[in-house]
């Protein structure tokens, strides 16, 4: 495993960071939130990201991708995280689309993956259920054989990127295990209700009332859905960790800047040792989170047998670190940090939402222990 960035990776980091800085200042995030629009992101900007090739990174050339890996994907998601960009790179490209990349048929890829990579369509991953916390078992969604296909019934919640998605990858219980099914928006019996989340991102409830899909809607094998979903979530999780890194880094930098600017007792508050030591500890946590995320991405790219444990390590770390930094950021800003007018609040909200996406720290510590055989 090699941690030093290659020249190409360093260049990608530079261009991605510069693009986000130019096109996505935090004023844009505020405007998106205040607009109250259902999509909560800018399709035009997403189109530009696709033109830059960001949506093609983690896919095989045969699928129209750039045949790069998660090591590159996290570079892009980190840049997105710096600007808190809500465009559906995480939810669609690193979410639903990964199921098709890993197990889709040529026809499925043609219909959905190719336009997703082109930035023309989005694919949402619908696996989470109310009351199920982070479970992937899909206990409340059933798929029954019906005619030459399947009939799906159940409910999904907090489907990221769910409002306005073109197709959903829905997990459901079959007689012999879990299956993942493609359900197009507008399918008869499917109701999509947008949800409002604390971080202002796009999410929806999916109600499936006897939604009929064809045989060709099944992604992967019947009964193989749990493993496939686990692999998809690993990839999505690493990409999310990249995003979290970008966010925590900016929240930290904003706080450092404030420590050097705000004066009380006639001195900069950054000269108080009580704050200095806490800032140093925040710095340490960012650095460790960065190593853990890079290691997880490389492990997946190299098909390292430890990859799943390393993913859980990264997500547990990034969750704890982002929350620590966001909490401290608000505290060190004092009263102004509590106001809606100040941008730091966006980070504490995003930190919480990201923590609770694809399993929180406690979930991933438990998973790490299970994977390690204790």
């Amino acid at each position, binding site marked *: 495993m090699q*941690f*030093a960035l290659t020249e190409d990776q360093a260049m990608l980091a530079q261009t991605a960071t510069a693009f986000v800085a130019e096109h996505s200042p935090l004023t844009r995030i505020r405007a998106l939130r205040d607009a109250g629009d259902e999509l909560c992101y800018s399709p035009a900007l997403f189109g530009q990201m696709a033109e830059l090739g960001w949506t093609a990174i983690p896919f095989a050339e045969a699928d129209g991708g750039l045949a790069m890996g998660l090591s590159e994907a996290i570079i892009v998601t980190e840049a997105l995280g710096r600007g808190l960009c809500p465009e559906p790179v995480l939810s669609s490209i690193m979410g639903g689309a990964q199921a098709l990349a890993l197990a889709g048929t040529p026809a499925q890829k043609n219909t959905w993956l190719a336009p997703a990579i082109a930035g023309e369509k989005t694919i949402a991953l619908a696996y989470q259920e109310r009351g199920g916390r982070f479970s992937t078992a899909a206990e409340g969604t059933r798929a029954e054989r019906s005619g030459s296909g399947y009939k799906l019934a159940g409910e999904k919640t907090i489907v990221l990127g769910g409002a306005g998605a073109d197709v959903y990858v829905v997990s459901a219980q079959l007689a012999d295990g879990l299956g993942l099914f493609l359900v197009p928006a507008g399918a008869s019996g499917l109701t999509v209700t947008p949800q409002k989340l604390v971080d202002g991102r796009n999410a929806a409830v999916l109600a499936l009332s006897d939604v009929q899909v064809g045989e060709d809607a099944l992604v992967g094998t019947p009964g193989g859905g749990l493993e496939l979903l686990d692999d998809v979530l690993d990839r999505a999780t690493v990409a999310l960790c990249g995003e979290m890194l970008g966010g925590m880094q900016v929240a930290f930098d904003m706080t450092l800047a404030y420590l050097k600017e705000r004066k009380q007792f006639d001195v*900069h508050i950054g000269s108080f040792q009580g704050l*200095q*030591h806490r800032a140093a500890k925040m710095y340490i946590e960012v650095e460790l989170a960065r*190593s*853990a995320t890079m290691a997880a991405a490389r492990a997946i790219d190299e098909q390292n047998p430890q990859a799943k444990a390393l993913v859980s390590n990264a997500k547990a770390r990034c969750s704890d670190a982002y929350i620590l930094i966001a909490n401290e950021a608000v505290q060190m800003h004092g009263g102004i940090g509590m106001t809606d007018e100040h941008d730091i609040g966006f980070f504490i909200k995003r930190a919480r939402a990201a923590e609770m996406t694809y399993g929180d720290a406690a979930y991933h*510590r438990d998973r*790490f*222990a299970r994977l390690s055989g204790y």
Partner: protein
Amino acid sequence: MGDLEAFRADVRAWLEQNAPKSLQGQLGQESVYWGGRNPTTASPESKDFCEMCAEKGWTAPTWPKEYGGGGLGQAEERVLQQELARLRLPPPLTGFGLQMIGPTLLQFGTEAQKQEHLTKITRGEIRWCQGYSEPNAGSDLASLATAAVLEGDEYVLNGQKIWTSYGDVSDWMFVLVRTDPDVKKQKGITFLLIDMDQPGVEVRPIKLISGFSPFCETFFTNARAKTKDVISGVNQGWTVAKALLGHERTMIANVFGSAGGRGRSQGENPAVALAKRYVGTDETGQLKDRVLRDQVTRVTMDTLSFNQTVQRNADNIKAGHRPGPESSIFKVYGTELNQRREELMLALRGPQALGWEGPGFEPAELAQTRSWLRSRGNTIEGGTSEVQLNIIAKRVLELPEQ
């Protein structure tokens, strides 16, 4: 076969052929050889092994050959370490000579000084100790007062050092002395090497809370050092002193990072093994106590991420980037992690970790009690955690002066 793999094959064959069988499986620190005029090691094979390896330049693999090193690159050094670990062999030699004064001499020493001291270090002939701290100069090291006055081609030393680790078993000391009391405190310090085998040097061991006496008070009464043993000029010692502290902190952090990392790569996580035995598992094989299970996981994950960060730093240096600011976190995080690891081990053993000596406890349990107590010093020695955090705040984060 690449050069590196050819090197690996050579090392492996040589070690299998030559490394004393009694040392194999002795990876733990107890069997490491520290060298010196009167070596304290328990096993005579340790000395043999050190001398054999010194012949090949493997006690200081990356040092230049003309000073007893191996002239090897970092990649080869890593292969050597991996091959030693494969046979669970201890490193052939350790000590403050190899880890602290050696690298400092390579950086600041004159040709004559390197010739005189380095080879003796690589052969394990001379053991070194560190004379920095004084009763009134700890974190504020630059306020040190031990005086050195020039007399002909000698300096005459008077004063006291404290917390001198292994002072009672060392041959030479690298010592910070005050050569000019009338300037800003950092500007009047000289970095000297002194032979401790002389009447003017008296060493008294101090007993630690762990019951052991690895460190001492050192008294100088008209002790003598040679002017040729001044490193980098009179009153220029502070720069040298700080560079050496960098080596010391890297060493301390490496010990604690790799302690966990080595355990993992060599098989079962030691905390998990201990937990299975002392805490037990349920029918699914999971640790019965969910809280302790989570604590094991936290320490294991933190060790993993720490080692990943050490590797990231090494990879960045190898790729030609300057050591990143991330290296400043190793001392503070590595030592605090080691303390948490020791506390976890106590928690897992439960009341069996309370033994001091005598019946009712296994040797490993008794050792655990002591090593936990010893670990409390990790965040004090080599610059306290608070001082490290000050350094990060000031140098890395560039926060305003307190």
